[in-house]
C-alpha cells in the first residue's frame, strides 16, 4: 500500500461536545493507526528531523520500533532523550521543530510524518501497559544538588542528575509540582493525571520534591549555597505583565496566569465542589495571540461563556500560537479581531468591567523581532461589550528569588545570564535554565536546558571541567 500524503488523522472530541467539558480534545492513536503512521517515515539516513528537536531524540529510531510493533523498545529509545514524552507529544510545537524539517513534508502536497502524535502514542502505550522501561541509575556519587522550581526544566535536570547518581532535592513554592504544566496549560490539552504520572517517574529515580517552599523566603539562598554542591535555578518567567491601561484593576479583568491558575491548579471549573471561585463570564475578551491566549479563551468557553473574542494587535499570520490550537479555537467558535488593540477598560459604579475600548491598527515596517510593527489608525476607536477580560500579553521574570542572589548577573529584561551550552551563571556552583534564562519559551526548550545543565553539572562536580576557571 502506498503511504498517504497526509498524516494519519487523530480522532478527537467533536467541537460542540468538547466546549462543554474539560476532557482532553484528541484521543490519541490506536496501535494500528500508529503503525500506519510510522510506515510513512522514510528512515532518512541524514535524519533531518533530529536536528529540529531541541533534545535530539532519535526520531527514525523510535519510529522504526513502532513500525516493528516493538512498542517497549520504542519507549526505551524515547526515554533515553526525553524524560517527559507524554507531555512533549502533546504540547510541543512540532510544526516549527522536528516536523518542519521532515523530508516527507517537503514533498509538494504532502504532510510531514506526525512525529508528535507518535511520541504521544508511545508514551501513553507504555503507561497503559504499566511497563516501566528499565533505567539504569549510576552508583551514588555522594554529592547533593538543589533544584529550584519543578517546571519542565527543573524536572529534567533532576531526573538526569539522579540517573547519574546524584542526590537531588527539588524545591517548589506551589503545592503541586510541574510549573506551567500544572498551573497554566489546561486539562483539555494536557491532563493533569499525565503530568502526575511523569512527575512520579521522576520521583521513582529517588528525586525528592519539597513543596510549599518559596526559596529565598522559606530557605535563604545562603543556606542553599552552603548545603548543596550545585544549584540549578529553573523558576520560570511567571510574573504576569499588564498593559496597564485605564481600568486594569476593575473586577473581571484578569491576567491569563490568574485565570488559568484558578481554573487549572485550583480547579475552579469544579466550584463549589472545589473552593476556589472564578468568574464565569458571558462575554469574554482575551487579549493576545499566543498559546496562552488560546488556552484562556478555550477555558472561558468551557466555563459557559456565550461569546469569547480574542483581540490581537497583529494578524493571523503573525500570531505566535500553535497552528493546531488556533484551529481548535476556531472550530470551537471563538471569534478573532485582528489588528485590534485595547486602550481602556470601561467600568460600572461597582467597579466591574463592562466593556473594552479598542483602536484599530495597521501593520508598518518590521520591528526588531522581524514582525511588522502594528500602528494605531486614528479615529478608529470602538467599544466591545465584555464582563470578563483576560490579558495574555506575556510574562516576565519572577523577582523575589533573584533579588536575593547577590552577585547573580541578570540581563536588561531581568532574566538570568547563563551560558547557552553549560547553563553556568555568573555565580560559582549556580546553573540556570528554562524560561528564567530565555524568557517565556517552550516546554521542550526548558527540558533541553535541563538536559545540558545536568551534563555540565555532572562534569563540574566530577572535577572534569570548571566553567568558572
Amino acid at each position, binding site marked *: 500500500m502506498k503511504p498517504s500524503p497526509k498524516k494519519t488523522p487523530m480522532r478527537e472530541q467533536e467541537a460542540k461536545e468538547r466546549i462543554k467539558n474539560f476532557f482532553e480534545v484528541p484521543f490519541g492513536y490506536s496501535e494500528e493507526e500508529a503503525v500506519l503512521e510510522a510506515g510513512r517515515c522514510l528512515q532518512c539516513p541524514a535524519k533531518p528531523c533530529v536536528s529540529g528537536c531541541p533534545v535530539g531524540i532519535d526520531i527514525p529510531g523510535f519510529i522504526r520500533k513502532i513500525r516493528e510493533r516493538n512498542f517497549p523498545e520504542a519507549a526505551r529509545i524515547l526515554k533515553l532523550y526525553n524524560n517527559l514524552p507524554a507531555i512533549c507529544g502533546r504540547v510541543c510545537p512540532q510544526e516549527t521543530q522536528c516536523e518542519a524539517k521532515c523530508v516527507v513534508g517537503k514533498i509538494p502536497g504532502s504532510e510531514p510524518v506526525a512525529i508528535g502524535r507518535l511520541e504521544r502514542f508511545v508514551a501513553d502505550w507504555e503507561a497503559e501497559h504499566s511497563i516501566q522501561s528499565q533505567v539504569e541509575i549510576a552508583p551514588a556519587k555522594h554529592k547533593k544538588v538543589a533544584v529550584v522550581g519543578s517546571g519542565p526544566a527543573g524536572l529534567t535536570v533532576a531526573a538526569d542528575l539522579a540517573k547519574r547518581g546524584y542526590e537531588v532535592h527539588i524545591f517548589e*513554592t*506551589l*503545592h503541586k509540582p510541574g510549573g506551567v504544566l500544572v*498551573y497554566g496549560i489546561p486539562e483539555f490539552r494536557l491532563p493533569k493525571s499525565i503530568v502526575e504520572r511523569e512527575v512520579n517517574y521522576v520521583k521513582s529515580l529517588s528525586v525528592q520534591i519539597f*513543596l*510549599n*517552599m*518559596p526559596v529565598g*523566603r*522559606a*530557605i*535563604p539562598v545562603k543556606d542553599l549555597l552552603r548545603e548543596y554542591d550545585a544549584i540549578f535555578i529553573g523558576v520560570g518567567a*511567571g*510574573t*504576569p505583565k*499588564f498593559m*496597564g491601561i485605564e481600568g*486594569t*484593576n476593575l*473586577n*473581571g479583568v*484578569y*491576567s491569563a*496566569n*490568574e485565570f488559568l*491558575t*484558578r481554573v487549572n491548579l*485550583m*480547579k475552579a471549573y469544579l*466550584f*463549589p*465542589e*472545589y*473552593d*476556589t*471561585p472564578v*468568574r464565569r463570564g458571558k462575554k469574554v475578551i482575551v487579549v493576545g495571540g499566543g498559546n496562552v491566549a488560546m488556552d484562556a479563551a478555550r477555558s472561558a468557553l468551557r466555563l459557559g461563556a456565550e461569546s469569547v473574542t480574542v483581540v490581537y494587535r497583529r494578524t493571523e499570520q503573525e500570531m505566535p500560537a500553535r497552528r493546531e490550537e488556533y484551529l481548535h479555537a476556531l472550530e470551537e467558535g471563538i471569534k478573532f479581531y485582528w489588528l485590534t488593540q485595547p486602550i481602556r477598560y470601561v467600568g460600572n459604579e*461597582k*467597579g466591574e468591567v463592562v466593556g473594552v475600548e479598542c483602536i484599530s491598527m495597521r501593520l508598518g515596517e518590521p520591528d526588531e523581532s522581524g514582525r511588522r510593527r502594528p500602528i494605531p489608525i486614528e479615529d478608529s476607536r470602538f467599544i466591545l461589550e465584555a464582563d470578563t477580560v483576560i490579558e495574555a500579553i506575556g510574562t516576565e521574570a*519572577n*523577582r*523575589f528569588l533573584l533579588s536575593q542572589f547577590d552577585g547573580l548577573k541578570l540581563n536588561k529584561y531581568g532574566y538570568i545570564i547563563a551560558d547557552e551550552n553549560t547553563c553556568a551563571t555568573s555565580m560559582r556552583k549556580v546553573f540556570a535554565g528554562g524560561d528564567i534564562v530565555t524568557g517565556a519559551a517552550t516546554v521542550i526548550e526548558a527540558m533541553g536546558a535541563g538536559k545540558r545543565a545536568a551534563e555540565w553539572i555532572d562534569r563540574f562536580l566530577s572535577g572534569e571541567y570548571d566553567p568558572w576557571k
Partner: protein
Amino acid sequence: MNLIREKRKLAPGVYEFWIENNHIVKYAQPGQFVVMRLHEKAERIPITIAGKKDDSFRAVVRAVGKSTYELCMAKEGDSIMDIAGPLGRPSEIGFYGNVMLVGGGVGIATLLPIAEALKAQGNRLYVVLGGRSKEYVIMLEEFSKLADQIVITTDDGSFGIKGVVTDGMQMLFEREKIDIVWAVGPTIMMKFCSMKAKEHGVRIWVSLNPIMVDGTGMCGACRVTVNGKIRFACVDGPEFEGELVDWDELLKRLAQYRNEEEHSLKLFMERVGDLSWL
C-alpha cells in the same frame, strides 16, 4: 509538619492556633504571612504569622467565610495539608522614636510581632486597639507589656472609650509627637487611619489584605494601586504607605466574589449544621 499543636478561642469566631512548621519558625520576620490550603479541594488562603515559639508559629483567624470557618473548626492534633511561607516583604523595623500602633479585629494579632520588633529597637510604643465590643479586643495582655501608652476603643463603649480607632489616634496625636504609624485591621479602618495620619503629617504603614491566589507574585490577583502604580501585595507588600493606596479600588476588589462566597458558605453550613458556637 503543619500539625495544630494548640488551639484557643480568643473571641466569638476568633481563634488562635499554634502550628508546627520549622521553616516558618526559623525564617519568619514581622509583617510576613503564609498561604494555607486545608485539604485537596480547598482554596489557598493568606494568614499572617502572628508570633512563634519553639517549633510552632501562631495564626489568629477570624471566621468570615467558608475557608476560615473550616479552619476555625479544625482541632488540636489535626494537620493542615499545605502551608507555604514565609511570604511577603518584612516590615521595615528600625528606630523611629515614638511609634503609634493601631490594631483592629484580627489585625491586632498581625501587629504584635511588629510591636515586639519595634520595641526591641528601643522605640516608644503608643498603642490603639479597637473592637466591636470588649470581647473582641484581643491580646490585650501581650500589648500591655510592650506599650508605653495604650488606648482601647469599642464601638459600643463596653470597654475603653466609645468610638473607633481613629478617635484613639486623635487622642494620642494630641498628647505626643508621633514619628511613624503602623495600622492593621479591616480595610475600611486602615483607610480612615491613613487619612488621620495624613491630617497630622505622619507617615503610616498599613498591611493590605487583598484577595490572593498563589501569594508568590505569579498571578496578579492581589494587585493594588499604590501611588498610581500597579503593585502586587504578596511580593511588593503586604505593607504599603497608607497615604498612597487607592482604597476605594481595593474595597471594590475585595467584593469581587461576594456571590460565590455566599453560595459556598451556605452549602457548607447546610453540610455541617449550626456554627453559631464558633
